[in-house]
C-alpha cells in the first residue's frame, strides 16, 4: 500500500469509469472525490484543496479544457497537477493543453488502471517536495 496520502479529485461524466477509478485510487491509498461534470468539479475545488485533478476531456456543460482554464485562471491553482484522460484521438492538441494549462499527462481511453494509479503517484510524489 502506498504511504503517499494525497487528495485526488476526479471529474468524469462516465459514472462507470469514475467508480472504478475511485476504487483503484482508494485501493492505492489516496483520498478520492468524484465530480460528474466540470461545474461540480469547480465547486469541489473551491470547497477543498486537492493534490491532483484527474479530468475527462469531453464532458457536458464545462468540458475538460474549460475546467483546466478555470483551475488556472479563476481558482489560481497553478501548482496542482492535472492528468487528463479522453476517448478522443488525434483531434486533441496535446501540446496546446500542456502549454496553455500545464496539463501534466494525457491518457487515452482505454487506459490501464495500473498506468493511471502509477501516474497519479508520480505526479503527487513530484509535487510534495516542492511544497515542502
Amino acid at each position: 500500500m502506498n504511504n503517499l496520502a494525497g487528495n485526488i479529485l476526479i471529474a468524469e461524466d462516465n459514472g462507470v469509469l469514475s467508480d472504478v477509478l475511485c476504487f483503484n485510487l482508494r485501493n492505492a491509498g489516496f483520498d478520492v472525490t468524484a465530480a460528474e461534470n466540470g461545474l461540480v468539479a469547480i465547486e469541489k475545488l473551491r470547497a477543498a484543496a486537492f493534490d491532483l485533478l484527474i479530468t475527462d476531456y469531453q464532458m457536458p456543460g464545462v468540458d475538460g479544457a474549460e475546467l483546466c482554464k478555470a483551475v488556472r485562471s479563476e481558482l489560481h491553482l497553478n501548482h496542482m497537477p492535472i492528468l487528463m484522460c479522453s476517448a478522443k484521438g488525434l483531434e486533441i492538441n496535446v501540446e496546446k493543453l500542456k502549454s496553455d494549462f500545464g496539463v501534466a499527462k494525457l491518457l487515452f481511453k482505454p487506459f490501464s488502471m495500473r498506468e493511471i494509479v502509477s501516474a497519479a503517484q508520480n505526479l503527487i510524489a513530484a509535487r510534495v517536495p516542492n511544497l515542502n
Partner: protein
Amino acid sequence: MHTPAYTLPLSRRLLGRYLMFGLAGLFVCISMIIVFNYLGTLKEHLVFAVAASLGLLLLGAVVLQRSVRVNQAIEEQLRQISSVLAGDTRVLQPLAESDSAAIGWNSVIQQLRGQQHQATLEARLCDLSAAGDDRQWNRIFHALHEGIAVCDSNDSILTVNNAFSALLGLNSATEVVGKKVLQLLEESVSGMQLGVSKSVLNSSSPFVCELRVGKHLADGVWRINRTPVIDQACETSITLWTIRDITQQKMADEMRNQFVFTATHELRTPLANIKAYAETLAQTSDIGIEDQKRFYNIINNEATRLSRFVDELLDVNQMESGAVTITCGETDLERLLNDVMENLKPQLQQKEQLFEKHFAAKLPSLRLDKDKITAALINLLGNAVKYTPEKGTVRFLVELDDTNIHFHIEDTGIGISAEELPRISEKFFRSSDSRVQSIVGSGLGLAFSQEVARLHRGRISVKSEINKGSRFTLTLPLS
C-alpha cells in the same frame, strides 16, 4: 472509227465553206459566160452572169456570217468567264441554235451548272453544319453544371456560361464581360480567402483551390480552378476559370468524419470501462464478493452496449446498401413492450427522471418484425432519456385507433430547433447544440428507426420545441 463532223476544227470548216461558195460563184460565172458566148448573147447577159456569181458569193457570206455568229457568242461568253466569272454559271446563256457548236456549248453549260449547283449545295451544307456545330457547342457550354468563365490572357472575362452566372448571382452573362474573375469572386463572397497568393494568379501555371462561401459549410464550398490554355506559339491565349460547387461532397465528408469520431468514441468508452473493470478484477486481490459481482455485471452491461453499437453499425451498413429487410411474424405487443422496458431499465436507472407509461387497455397482436420494432422503440425511448436532463419527464404512450397503432414518446428535454428539425433523420446528423454534442450518440438511431417504420408501411412524426421537449410518434398500420 466514225468522227462526227463537228469535231473538225472551226477554221477548217470555215475555210471549206468559203472555198465552196467562192468556187461555186467562179464556176457559175465562167459557165454562164461560156454559154452566153456560145449563144452569141454574151453582151446582153454579161451583167446577169456577174450578178448571179455575186449573188452566190453574197449567199456564201451570209452563210459564213451565220456560222461565225454562234462562235462569236461562245467567244464572248468565254471572255466573260475569264474576266468576270467566279464560279457563277448564271451569266452563261444557252444558245438557241441547233448546230453542233451550240449543242456542244449548251452541253458544257449544263454540265457546269450541274457542277456549280452541287458545289453551292455542298457549301451551304458546310455552312449549315458549321453553324449547327457552333450552336451545339454553345448549348453544351451553357448546360454544364460547372461554372465556366473564358478569359483573355489578362484574365479579363470574354464569356461565361449559365452555371457561372447562377453561382455568382449575376443578372446577365454580358454584364461581366471585361471584368476579372477574382474581382467578381471578391464581390460575391464576403471576406473571401482563396488560400493562394496573387502571384500564383498572375503566373501561367494552373492552380486549384477551395473557397468557403459563408461561415458554415452548408453555406457553400466552391472548388476554383484556373487553367491557362497555351496556343501554338506557346503563349497563353486564353485562361479558363471553372467553379464547381462541392458543398454536398464536403458535407458528406463532414458527416463521415462526424461518424468516425462518434464511432471511435462509442467504441472506446465501453471498451475503456471493460478494460478498467477486468484489469481491476484481475490485479486486485482483496475485492469483496459484492464488489466483484458488481464489477462483473458492469463488464457484462458494457459488452452489451458495445454489441448494440456494432449491431447499429451493421444495420446502417445494410441501410446504406438498401438491404434492410424485415421478417414479419405474429407478435404479442404486450410482450414486445415488456422487452422494450426491460432493455431500457439500465438507462432509466442511471438518470433521475420521471418515467411515465400508459398503454391502451387491450393491445392487439400484430404482424411485424419483433426485433426491428423493439430496436426502433428502444432507440426512440433511449433518445428521450438521453436528451432529457435530470428531474425531467419521459412519457411512453401507446394508443390505438381504427386503423393504426401510435407509440408516442414524449420528453421535457433539450428539444430540437426548427432549423435542425428537417435534418434529424439524416444519417450521421447530430445537432450542433453543445448539450447534444456532449452526449454520446451515433447519429444513426433515428435514421434506422425511420427505415424500420417505412418498411412496416408506417411512419415516424416529430414535434419539438427547443428547451421544452420533443414528441416522437411511431405509427404503424393495424392490418
